[in-house]
């Protein structure tokens, strides 16, 4: 059954336990960072940083808000990166969990094209062109554990479970949160398996919090391949 993560940013305190536990579980090296005048670090996702809590200070309706957005792959229901790659040795969806997974074969793909196809600007490439991103801790999930970021979260901002359960939780929380934040919304809930709840206009949180109209999606050739379906897969068009 498809799994989902529900991220309630209204109760995220940016302790960044998720960011560290992600590195720990995946044994990812630290980046050499420097403080550039913000608590956020690293400054962006990278080949060795799959999860990043974005931190922004915004004045909204005359009130200062410090907004936290634990950014990661959305594990799209219908993933443009997967369709664009069109190579299941490189990018595939685990039918058991719905996780979109990248392999070392991504090195053979046109990295910038894959990155460009992502409406949320998530995948990152290594120097040799190999791509990496959040894998929903698929190995943990298959062994009955929750993703590391979810296990670490102290407040319940990160939640994990069956898609239907997470959607229901997201909708219920949205209804409650609306009393305090009338502009609260879920971000592309029908299209993604990592569903965010935000209190304000998503543009305040991240440039790519919602599927960006200016980028991503699929090209004509990809659309054609999709149309041809299994036949195209066989032919490796």
């Amino acid at each position, binding site marked *: 059954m498809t799994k989902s993560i529900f991220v309630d940013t209204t*109760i995220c*305190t940016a302790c960044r336990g998720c960011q560290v536990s992600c590195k720990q579980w995946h044994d990812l090296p630290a980046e050499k*960072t420097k*403080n550039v*005048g*913000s608590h956020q*670090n*690293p400054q962006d996702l990278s080949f060795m940083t799959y999860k990043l809590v974005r931190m922004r200070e915004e004045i909204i309706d005359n009130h200062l808000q410090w907004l936290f957005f634990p950014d990661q792959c959305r594990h799209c229901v219908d993933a443009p990166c997967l369709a664009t790659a069109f190579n299941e040795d490189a990018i595939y969806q685990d039918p058991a969990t719905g996780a979109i997974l990248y392999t070392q074969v991504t090195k053979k793909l046109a990295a910038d094209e894959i990155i460009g196809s992502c409406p949320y600007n998530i995948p990152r490439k290594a120097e040799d062109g190999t791509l990496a991103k959040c894998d929903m801790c698929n190995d943990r999930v298959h062994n009955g554990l929750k993703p590391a970021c979810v296990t670490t979260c102290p407040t*319940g901002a990160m939640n994990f479970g069956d898609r239907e359960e997470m959607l229901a939780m997201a909708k219920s929380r949205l209804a*409650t949160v609306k009393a305090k934040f009338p502009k609260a919304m879920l971000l592309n809930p029908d299209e993604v398996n990592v569903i965010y709840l935000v209190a304000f206009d998503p543009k305040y949180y991240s440039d790519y919090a919602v599927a960006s109209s200016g980028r991503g999606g699929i090209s004509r050739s990809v659309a054609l391949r999709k149309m041809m379906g299994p036949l195209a897969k066989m032919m490796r068009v």
Partner: protein
Amino acid sequence: MTNHWIDLKNSDCILIMGSNAAENHPISFKYITQAQLKGATVISVDPRFTRTSSKADIYAPLRSGTDIAFLGGMIKYILDNNLYNKEYTENYTNAGFIVNKNFGFKDGLFSGYKKNEEGPSMGSYDKSTWTFDMDEKGVPVVDRTLANKQSVFQLLKAHYSRYDLDTVSSVTGTSKEDLATVYKAYSATGAAGKAGTIMYAMGWTQHTVGVQIIRTMSMIQLLLGNMGVAGGGVNALRGESNVQGSTDQALLWHILPGYLKIPSSSMDTLDAYNTKWTPKSNDPLSANWWQNYPKYSVSLLKSYFGEKAVKDNQFGYPWLPKAEDGKSYSWFDIFDSMYKKEIKGFFAWGMNPACSGSNAQKVREAMGNLDWLVNVNLFDNETGSFWRGPGMDPAKIGTEVFMLPAAASVEKEGSISNSGRWMQWRYQGPKPMGNSRPDGDIILELGRRLKEAYKTDGVFKEPILNLKWDYDTHGEFDAHKVAKEINGYFHEDVKVGETVYKKGTLVPSFAFLQSNGSTSSGNWVYCASYTEKGNMAARRSNKDAANNIGLYPEFAWAWPVNRRIIYNRASVDPKGRPYDEKDWVVRFAGEEKDGKYTTSKWEGDIPDGPWYPLQNPDGTKREDGRHPFIMTTHGHGQIFGPGLADGPFPEHYEPIECPVEKNMFSAQMVNPTAVVYGTKADSHATCDPRFPFVGTTYRVSEHWQTGLMTRPQEWLLELQPNVFVEMSEELAKLKGIANGERVKVSSARGALECTAIVTKRFKPFKIGYATVHQVGIPWHYGWRWPETGTEESANLLTPSAGDPNTRIPETKAFMVNVAKL
């Protein structure tokens, strides 16, 4: 904490002030979030908008060091608007006590003040007028209507009448609107069944008025009836997983385990010592729990000296170290003495004073005066390597440094006591690495060697030779033996009621401790933690108590006697019925007949004693009830607190270094009893144009303490790689500083380089007609790591000035300058 972490979820209003729980106690937000989801209001009061503020329903800024003004204004607001919990205040607090007519307060000074020219204490009080009127039986005279002009309540009203919104706002820099919003929200918890709680930490303690800030809040909690109830209390968030345990075990110089007093040289006999510290009450309704003092002190001596402690030698009392009368041996005093070359040897054990000590440069220089320094720690640190640190010339330093590598907490078995007083047993994970050893083994071995050395030579051998030192099993430290010793044993067969407790068995609880040498206990508040029924701290049941408020009484063990909420008899009315029917803590469940209780039984948490309630169901008074505040002499919550060094009512004074030339409340600029040190390394600069900005220090989620365990951890250093200084956009503009630029921050004592974080989260304060800027710096860094050596400790800036009660340093409010490099 009078309450505990989980209990935060039961609160209706959580005031987070003097702490930044979201960043420094992140797990607490699990329970804060639960409370908030149930409709609780969360208030964040902080000079800077923090991650805590980002989740709060109400945020109000205040200038560092003005908390008493802020809270004093809340007391006035509560009294002016009759928002105090009338029944609670009248019955359970000393608001109705009549104060000595010679007690006075004038222009910032209480009666009995005497200046001290010698220092380091600036002055002290003769407290002989800070007393209550007694009736012919020696019981305090009480006017429960609170109308008497000389009552605590009326004096309180008069004292805080000066703390009006205008004056408070002009001192704190908080807008009047923000003050009123916070006061209104918090005072609403004075209603019956509502609970408000305070979460504070070093943002309150580390001031020259630190203890009085906490007292001001305690008084608010008493007025609002928030002590003893679920979701209430006064809650100190401890900064280290076992700092509560180490305090209970007398980490600080002025106490012995279990908050017994350190003997002083004038108390030359055990009787004199016990008499001095055993309070007397003639009120039959006052439990006056400290009347048991001799049982605990003698049991402690029996624990220290075992069979060597007998009645004829005063149970070894003469062997205890004595403090010189009037002399202090605090952290400050140790390093002051070391700086003056009066101390020759020093164990830095699990500490990094070169970075954690206020005025750290003085600390570093002081260590250069030692003959030897033993650094017991996980890794080498700025303390062990002080001699090769910045500005040090190794050729000129004669200190011999020894490094003893210690095992990390997970590498050894034992207990930790968390902020909520929960003693939790932990098992050993991995074995200690390399040649590192558990602290217990190091201490045990040190003791053995000392005993060996004293056998042949040494002055005053008895304390060392007679010390009981049998805490090993097969030569290794045995945490269970120590835990049992802390609990205590019967040393003779003792008959209590019909039961005979055999010699050599563990004491079931402190009610069984004796003053005749028949029992031992290494710490009476922990008595009942490790009994013949087993190790209570190792329990892991998830079953809640009958009241279902998250007490989990069979998970670990809480001192005292597994009581999860202290002073819980104050959560019920005088008839024993909970003020809050839903989130009740205890309730009386004894049988009743004809309007009178006939049997005694309490349900819920372990009550503060088994006694009957103060009244019968029909409202008649009982002779066998007890007032709820059992640890105070007269059984009442102390709104008038005659015990502290600086006054029975808290009063606002400016920090030793401050940006204003006048205290708006009195002619007394700073705490007249503050402690200020006077060597050439202890300079201070108040209202000095060289240091025009308020500075404060704090922590971040990503590092811990002086960063010894986190700075070398790459994933954490990735998150917070540099020491930074946060400042407002206004100040940055004024100084021409760009966001992310490296700048110099300096004080009268030292300087360091920081990365500027220019942020909307700091705003200039309007103090009267002046604009006051404030900056803040985390203190987690030190030159040893990262390897650039450029990230230094913020404690190079902080002053050698402290609170008169605790001598805790004033690291939360001092004056600095910020400049481009």
